[in-house]
């Protein structure tokens, strides 16, 4: 039953949820003896106050757009893909193989092939849990969690025993060649005459992430498959009655979800580290969950939520540098956002609905 108008449901509820999370975080900062106002000032100057800060903020944002879109596409089919972390890590393998195996002379074709490869690897890593869910009903949440660990073990093995260059102690691949270094936002904006800091790792992948937002929007709301995915997500029995095959929907939505998560690797592996390292994803796959929940599974919402988390991530790094507040503050904020825009959503919604009914009755 929809009591609230659409705008309240889509915009007001997530905003209230995020506000509660931030207020609780501020109280926690107070409790550990720091000033929340000083903290927020530091975060804003650190993350948004210079093009140097923006270079990092947008880099993180790019990661979270990909993983947020990944979670939200699966959510539309009522699949909860917790495996974004593993899919992004395996996507990194796809990028590294492409970048290391061929003698690329220009970044553009390399990026094109690496993007496809990252998507393919990510999709493959989602395919097995998807197939087991679609065919045998194995719970996708559990299998994707298991696949995160299995993926980490495989990468660990490959980086230590197979892909590590001889003589190197680091469990990482060799550095990619400088020919395929992706243009940074500094390089791109220079063309149009805007000066932007050289230091930040934000790169051309950001534009691909934006394009992915548009494509996902088109796919979900303007294609037959997108329609079927949404129909399936709303009511499985109605969808089946309308001739939609659950097997196909689960596979399609999860493959696209995995591909999107995998594509994150062009940003962090090809754009930033320029080699595949252990734990390259740094939890971005999980932040995708918070981003998708807060963004209400809409690409525009995902973009805004990813920006917020990009800001929090870069701001959190600045906080850790200048105050005694550790970076883990961001993990707490992330948890609270997942809690209040996801699991405890009804706690926010119920009083709002009550208020809404009361006010409309008053008018009528």
């Amino acid at each position, binding site marked *: 039953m929809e009591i609230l108008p659409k705008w309240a449901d889509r915009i007001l509820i997530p905003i209230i949820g995020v506000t509660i999370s931030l207020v609780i975080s501020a109280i926690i900062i107070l409790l550990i003896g720091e000033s929340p106002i000083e903290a927020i000032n530091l975060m804003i100057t650190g993350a948004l106050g210079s093009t140097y800060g923006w270079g990092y903020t947008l880099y993180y944002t790019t990661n979270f757009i990909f993983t947020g879109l990944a979670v939200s596409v699966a959510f539309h089919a009522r699949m909860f893909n917790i495996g974004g972390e593993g899919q992004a890590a395996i996507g990194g393998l796809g990028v590294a193989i492409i970048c290391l195996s061929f003698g690329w002379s220009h970044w553009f074709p390399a990026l094109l092939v690496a993007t496809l490869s990252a998507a393919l690897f990510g999709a493959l890593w989602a395919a097995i849990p998807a197939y087991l869910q679609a065919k045998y009903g194995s719970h996708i*949440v559990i299998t994707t969690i*298991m696949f995160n660990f299995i993926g980490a073990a495989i990468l660990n093995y490959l980086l230590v025993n197979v892909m590590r260059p001889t003589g190197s102690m680091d469990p990482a691949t060799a550095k990619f060649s400088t020919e395929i270094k992706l243009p940074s936002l500094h390089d791109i904006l220079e063309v149009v005459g805007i000066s932007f800091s050289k230091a930040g790792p934000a790169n051309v992948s950001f534009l691909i992430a934006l394009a992915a937002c548009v494509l996902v929007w088109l796919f979900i709301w303007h294609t037959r498959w997108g329609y079927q995915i949404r129909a399936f997500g709303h009511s499985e029995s109605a969808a089946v009655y309308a001739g939609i095959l659950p097997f196909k929907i689960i596979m399609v939505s999860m493959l696209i979800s995995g591909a999107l998560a995998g594509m994150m690797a062009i940003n962090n592996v090809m754009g930033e580290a320029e080699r595949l390292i252990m734990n390259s994803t740094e939890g971005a796959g999980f932040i995708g969950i918070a981003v998708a929940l807060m963004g209400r599974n809409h690409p525009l919402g995902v973009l805004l939520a990813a920006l917020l988390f990009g800001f929090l991530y870069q701001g959190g790094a600045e906080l850790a540098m200048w105050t005694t507040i550790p970076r883990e503050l961001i993990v707490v904020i992330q*948890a609270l956002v997942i809690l209040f825009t996801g699991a405890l959503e009804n706690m926010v919604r119920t009083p709002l609905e009550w208020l809404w009914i009361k006010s409309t009755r008053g008018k009528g």
Partner: protein
Amino acid sequence: MDFNTLIQVLDSTIRLAIPLLLCGLAGLFSERAGIFDIGLEGKMLAAAFFAAAMASVTGSVWLGLCFGVLASLTLSILHGLASITFRGNQLISGVAINFLAAGITVLIGQSWFKLGGRTPSLRGNARFQEISLPFSEQISGVPILGPIYSELLSGHTSLAYVAFLLVPISWYILFRTRFGLRLRAVGENPAAVDTAGISVVKLRYAAVIICGILCGLAGAYLSTGLAAGFVKDMSAGRGFIALAALIFAKWRPWHILSATLLFGLLEAISNRFQNIDIFGLILPVQFMQALPYVLTVIILAGFVGKATPPLAGGIPYIKD
């Protein structure tokens, strides 16, 4: 592998299986009542931190244990609030709890001890002491049986013996008491329980509370029994391995014991040997680490018997 090595590996199997066992039993109560819990990891981590922190401050491991259980219980109630009272998504709530614990333990740890999220090392009464079973010294000289009794079975902490005792106790509660019957019923068909005039909400909260207490014991064991203090992220995925064991055991207490011992053995082996050579086939250490997860996926896929979770698991109960 000689006999002594075997005893040592099995001894560390038991040590490593205890937190998995306690956590697995915790999940058993929750999931049998229809509340999915992927937040075992977070509850164990929070308990590990508060147990070690309070043990370090007060010097008493028992006070530490109390606070550890209390921390885990708080997160459990939060999970109950989200999934029972507000009928939210239990999986999302679990994810949130895992991150909340991962973040807050470091935040508070850094603020209290300024050791980068660690607690000070625990000594003496701030740790669980190893208990020698009676006659273990006298028997230790007897070949084969001596080492088995005095090294393998004796010399664990009290929590370890409690954990083993909890297996028959859990079985008895779940399968031989009225409360257990109702708890299982509420996980299969809550509407029927409701119709019989029994409160679904109370039963599910009871299950979630038991789950919180057991996760608390698991966490306290981790930081004050197995290790001598808390380090950041020390649960290291054990909550998920316990979840895997729970599924592997198809939600049955005795099978949880065997599954957790098996997964404990895998961890013990991968800790002790780097690569294992089986007739020329070399198994890398990462293979052993991934094996519990692979086995669970295979079980879930139904290739070796079907693992069917409680029917009403994950679905909030809405009274019509």
